[in-house]
């Protein structure tokens, strides 16, 4: 495809091809400073939904090595989101080299903090904030758990900030790290934030998980101890490839659940959430 870009995100190389120039230009600007893989593991294609849709009311169908037949097309103006969804889709459907957890990950002192939660629980915002305040950002979407040694590998793609989080992060990071504001997407207003330079430079450094938190935004502050059975079930639901991996997936997840302390945390504002995370890290992980 004429418009294309190769991107290394953590241990995974992507190539993104597009029928239009604009999505690739936006991607290139957002991902400035990311290495370029020579050989891409996954191919993402942004194609016209039908041939006519290249020119008339352009709409992007997300395709690639792995494709969901019923995925809704996106407007050309949301090309960055389409590329992000395309990359996520390849990971969710095709990645088998690690146990894939739908979780944000951060590193400090050589150890990893995992934040797992359903969409809207605030893990992206929390991870982005911690990434500006003394933690190495390892990713806001997927944590990749090594099947043999259990370490978490980073997947530090640009943070996908939604709605209110955009303003929160605008106070934290310089404007040149932000992508364009994407309004009226299926997920509301979205703006991407490129992680700090250290997160990109150290993207290939894994870290053993030391604390597992399940944050929930909008409740009064609370910390709840979770039994290992509950943690296990929550993480099977948070994993896109646990079933497909079979026994190695079970072994990796069991090791994680047995070896890493876990808590569910409720929080009502980000400031107290950060204080809570820091306290739990001191008590349980440091």
């Amino acid at each position, binding site marked *: *495809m004429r418009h294309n870009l190769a991107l290394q995100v953590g241990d995974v190389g992507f190539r993104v091809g597009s029928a239009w120039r604009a999505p690739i230009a936006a991607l290139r600007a957002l991902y400035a400073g990311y290495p370029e893989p020579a*050989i891409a593991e996954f191919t993402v294609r942004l*194609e016209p939904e039908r041939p006519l849709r290249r020119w008339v009311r352009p709409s992007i169908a997300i395709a690639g090595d792995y494709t969901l037949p019923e995925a809704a097309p996106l407007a050309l103006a949301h090309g960055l989101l389409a590329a992000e969804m395309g990359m996520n889709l390849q990971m969710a459907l095709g990645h088998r080299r690690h146990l894939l957890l739908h979780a944000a990950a951060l590193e400090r002192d050589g150890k990893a903090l995992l934040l797992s939660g359903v969409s809207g629980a605030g893990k992206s915002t929390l991870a982005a904030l911690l990434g500006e305040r003394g933690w190495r950002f390892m990713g806001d979407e997927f944590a990749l758990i090594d099947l043999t040694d259990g370490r978490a590998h980073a997947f530090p793609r640009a943070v996908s900030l939604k709605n209110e989080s955009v303003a929160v992060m605008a106070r934290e990071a310089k404007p040149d790290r932000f992508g364009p504001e994407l309004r009226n997407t299926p997920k509301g207003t979205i703006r991407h934030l490129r992680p700090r330079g250290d997160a990109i430079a150290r993207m290939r450094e894994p870290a053993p998980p030391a604390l597992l938190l399940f944050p929930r935004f909008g409740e009064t502050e609370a910390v709840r101890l979770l039994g290992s059975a509950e943690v296990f079930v929550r993480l099977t639901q948070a994993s896109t490839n646990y079933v497909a991996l079979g026994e190695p997936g079970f072994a990796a997840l069991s090791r994680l659940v047995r070896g890493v302390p876990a808590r569910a945390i409720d929080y009502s504002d980000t400031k107290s959430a950060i204080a809570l995370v820091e306290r739990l890290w001191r008590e349980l992980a440091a």
Partner: protein
Amino acid sequence: MSARLLVTALVDPGSTIALSSAQWTALIAIARAEQLIGSLAYRLDGLALPEPVENIMAAARASAEQQRLRALWEAEMARRALAPLAVPVVLLKGTAFVAAGLDAGVGRSIGDLDILVPRARIDEAEAALLGAGWERIKADAYDDAYYRRWMHELPPLIHVERDRMIDVHHTILPPTARPKPDAARMIAERIELGNGLAILSPADIVIHAAAHLFADGDLAGGLRNLWDIDRLCREFGERDEGSYLRLVEEAYAAKLGPHVLRALRLTHHLYATPVPAYHQAFRLAVELTPSDRLFLHRLLARDAWGRPIRSVTRFGFYVRSHALRMPPHLLARHLAIKWWKSRRSA
């Protein structure tokens, strides 16, 4: 650029040493698109590969092994469900290859479980599966009736807990297709695996693969199908020198002679399948015919991004797939009902 890149890598894995990074990326995308990444990964096993490629191939081998285990487990589940009926259960396609330990099963992607049971017992088989946790997924009454009246298999069933599909066949081609293979003979000549399951005889396995590819479908997944046929013919030919003669003989008896011969010509051309040079009254001509070139044009229709190309040829084969399945009046009726239903639901 075409899927020839994939074909060359499968036939001569050592040749990949000369691939550029861009060609590796294309090869991986094409192999995934043709569902041959697992087969390719095993072919490349042991070679010195670029590190990202080795990682991808190791994962593809692990994934194929997991698919093999799941396929065997699913076959065992079906066996248990059908055991009280004391009916022959013949595994078909990928599950048969891995259950019998055939080379064609090495690295193969396996989705649904396909089994063949005698037509007279198919209602009992369906009832037994429904009683063991499988459910119907085609809720639509017309589609259900269509399957039962015109297809060679029951409407697909899906297991409520394991989320896996089973296709229960009573023959290998839709009853409306012109060739009428004798399913009862195929079942009678099955090979028992000793665990309550069976596979088709060597000749019938190849005939089924060729029939599936050339008498029932639009050639989607054709490169994988021909790779199956190549692996099967090589293995059966090594075991038994007469295997090709028996294959052609049985194929003509099933009115599928031309289909099998086309398969042999194309696998010989693409995958260098060794076809013995018989010097008897007849010989297997492996020179490509003009129509073979059209089939090749369709089989290799992928670009470096893994995208389907050559849309006119693809559409031609799509139309052909319908024409193969149904006589024109039946096709017109079927399309009219589908169109009317789609308008009503819109």
